[in-house]
């Protein structure tokens, strides 16, 4: 029915019942200060367009995309820019990152939104520009700029647009609730994307443990042709684009390639909703649905939070914590990241904030690998995690790549099932990081080597020129002053340094 089912995969306890039946809290109290890190997307940092002391309105552009894979940033509410300074980033390293700090004035005053025509009447390129202007990135956690993906899609013959509603991470229900509560908006957004990339069909893929969302979307999609709502098996990591494509179309994305290559484009429902908001109402991406859950949260809920809201505020909106969490995460438990501080802000890719108890995390001291090969069975990419980790452990990265490090999507299925509790994913993160570092230093070496050669050549040239000048001087002493003036300033120094 679904073509080739996913290979491997795991069935972690979903824990979605904590929040799945509760509607999204829309009206959070306006936070006093909002922190907007300049790097909330895949590419390089965006460049601040405001200065300390500027007053900004809700939806106003505060930072402009810094390059091809970067994205715009908008003020989530009206207020004053009080600082542009490093804050502790919502990132496991705890390193600082520059952020625009906005003190809200409590009025939440929108800037004047542009009047819009029917988006479907506009040209695809114009629409893509609008998506880019709205600063929309992949909302499922990939944070890849949506406009870039749309434009790439336009260069290919896209047969199938898959709307990814298979929220496979445990705990998270933000997409589920979004689909239930705003089905029409999602269908509308999907139609617009289809219009932009000129896709033949739209398939909305939802895991079969979300019957309400399926029903809501089916109802909303009914009036339109070529939009199909399909169930896929509940299995982690079904929400990963590669696995979802395999489950829906039966095709595999070639290694090193993109889904475009096989005529498929995948967008997350959250992204689709954001595109709908931007194209229909001109609203840039300034808020998102965040699942606040975990055993330590008093009253788990989904909340619609402004980007930049401190995590502390949204936890408080859910009744606060009832115990000190063993782990405080941004994202789901399988692929999310620990955040160093409860004051870290919500960013565009934040799907959830989880405060987990020790029992929920169930972390143990690692013991030696017994080669049970459960990780091999669990790997949805068909890799050999135990060998990858073994080689990464002794810094033999070439062999680690041989066993599939390049293809690893860091989904954590292997580490989830490991009976020896080996932190496999951390080994892979480490190996990938080291490889990247090595590549960088190789590049740098090549670069500096070139610079040295160029400099040596230059010095040779200068020497030759000087020699020629000396000879000339002997012959025609009158030219002396002229020659000296043409020489670069510190030839004498150079000579003394060399001797």
């Amino acid at each position: 029915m679904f073509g080739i089912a996913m290979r491997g995969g795991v069935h972690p306890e979903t824990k979605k019942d904590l929040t799945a039946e509760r509607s999204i809290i829309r009206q959070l109290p306006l936070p006093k200060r909002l922190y907007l890190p300049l790097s909330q997307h895949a590419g390089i940092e965006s460049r601040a367009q405001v200065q300390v002391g500027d007053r900004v309105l809700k939806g106003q552009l505060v930072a402009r995309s810094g390059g091809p894979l970067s994205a715009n940033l908008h003020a989530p509410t009206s207020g004053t820019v009080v600082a542009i300074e490093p804050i502790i980033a919502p990132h496991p390293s705890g390193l600082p990152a520059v952020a625009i700090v906005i003190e809200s004035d409590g009025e939440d005053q929108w800037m004047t939104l542009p009047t819009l025509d029917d988006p479907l009447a506009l040209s695809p390129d114009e629409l893509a520009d609008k998506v880019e202007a709205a600063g929309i990135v992949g909302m499922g956690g990939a944070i890849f700029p949506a406009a870039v993906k749309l434009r790439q899609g336009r260069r290919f013959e896209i047969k199938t647009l898959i709307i990814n509603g298979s929220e496979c991470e445990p705990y998270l229900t933000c997409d589920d609730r979004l689909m239930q509560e705003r089905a029409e908006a999602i269908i509308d957004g999907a139609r617009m994307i289809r219009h932009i990339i000129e896709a033949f069909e739209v398939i909305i893929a939802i895991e079969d443990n979300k019957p309400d969302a399926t029903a809501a979307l089916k109802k909303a999609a009914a009036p339109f042709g070529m939009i199909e709502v399909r169930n896929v098996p509940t299995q982690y990591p079904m929400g990963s684009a590669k696995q979802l494509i395999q489950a829906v179309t039966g095709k595999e994305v070639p290694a090193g390639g993109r889904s475009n290559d096989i005529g498929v484009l995948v967008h997350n429902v959250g992204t689709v909703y954001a595109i709908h908001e931007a194209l229909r109402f001109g609203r840039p991406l300034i808020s998102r649905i965040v699942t606040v859950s975990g055993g330590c949260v008093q009253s788990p809920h989904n909340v619609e939070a402004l980007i930049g809201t401190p995590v502390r505020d949204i936890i408080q909106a859910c009744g606060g914590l009832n115990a000190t969490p063993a782990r405080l995460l941004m994202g789901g438990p399988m692929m999310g990241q620990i955040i160093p501080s409860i004051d870290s802000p919500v960013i565009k890719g934040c799907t959830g904030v989880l405060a987990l108890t020790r029992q929920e995390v169930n972390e143990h001291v690692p013991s030696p690998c017994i080669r049970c090969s459960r990780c091999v069975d669990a790997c949805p990419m068909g890799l050999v995690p135990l060998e990858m980790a073994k080689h990464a452990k002794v810094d033999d990265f070439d062999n680690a790549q041989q066993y599939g490090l390049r293809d690893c999507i860091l989904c954590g299925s292997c580490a989830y099932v490991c009976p020896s509790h080996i932190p496999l994913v951390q080994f892979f993160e480490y190996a990938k990081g080291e490889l990247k570092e090595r590549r960088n230093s190789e590049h740098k070496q090549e670069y500096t080597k070139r610079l040295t050669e160029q400099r040596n050549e230059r010095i040779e040239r200068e020497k030759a020129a000087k020699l020629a000048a000396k000879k000339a001087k002997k012959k025609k002493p009158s030219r002396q002053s002229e020659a000296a003036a043409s020489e670069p300033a510190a030839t004498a120094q150079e000579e003394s340094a060399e001797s």
Partner: protein
Amino acid sequence: MNAIRESVHRAAPYAHDRSSVDRIMLQVCLALTPATLFGFYLFGLPAILTFVSICLAAIATEAICLLLQGQSISRLRDASALLTGWLLAMSMPPWCPWWLCLGAGFFAIAIGKHLYGGIGQNVFNPAMLARVALLISFPVQMTTWVQVTPLGSEQAPGLLQSLAIFFEQQSIPDGYTGATLLGAAKAAANGGSAISELVADNYSLTQSFLGNTLGSLGETSELLILLGGLWLLRRRIISWHIPVAMLGSTLLLSGLFYMVSHAQYLSPWYHLTSGGVMLGAFFIATDYVTSPSSTAGKLIFGAGCGLVMYVIRAWGGFPEAVGFAVLFMNALTPLIDRVVKPRAYGRDQRGNPIKNVSARKAS
């Protein structure tokens, strides 16, 4: 990078399955329990002494090795030493003298496991390594098969007599020993007499399957072993690949040769129901550490075990060959693992990216 070193954080995932090494090991032990108890019943008190002393020797050796390596003694809790000792005891003759038991446990853990680097590092299955080493070193003791003397029956030795046999104060009475079916068949084949007659006269297939026959301590009852193995399959402790491949290749080969000559070769059903094939297929060849990790590798490994076992049984010098076959294939495991990798997503079997179905627009 040093700046982060003091951090105790670990990377994702922050959710884990409830499995653990000790749970796996103990479940395997549990699966072995029925066959073990049946062995106790068949061979009486000396068998219990053998079993207990081998397991204790294995655990004690593990403890000593851990201490010598400066590791935490709590590592004992992973129960891997118990399992090794248990499997070894299952494959030993039922009435072993005390020194053989201690030597077996010691050899399996100290030489078979810790000399290679401890749990997860050993190339060969420690239990089988110990069994084969002892078989070569002490062929007489290791091929002394006692007749079935069920607990409570008249021939069953009492406690004092059992202790005397265990501590070699009394030798095993002559009438108590006999030849296993495979041993008898081998002798018949070498002597040029027809196997079919011998078997028909002295052995019954049902008894062989149920286990009411002489043989190693815990592997006579193929039925109970099979049940234990199936339970492990259901619990997903082991996968079906190795047992099916091993039993399948044994069946295929023995069937083939049986068809060629009834007189010269033993029927496949006897091959499957004697000499610890079931124990080998479900419990020994499936040892995680020493078997390949990919499914294709497991199939090759299992089939190889069956093949080598049959070749040794039919034409080699030893009547029983599970241990040799498993050890032989253990040696090939690293090679199999290197050559037979699972096909990665988006790549072909050789690891090259699959052909692009180019959807690029002609522009």
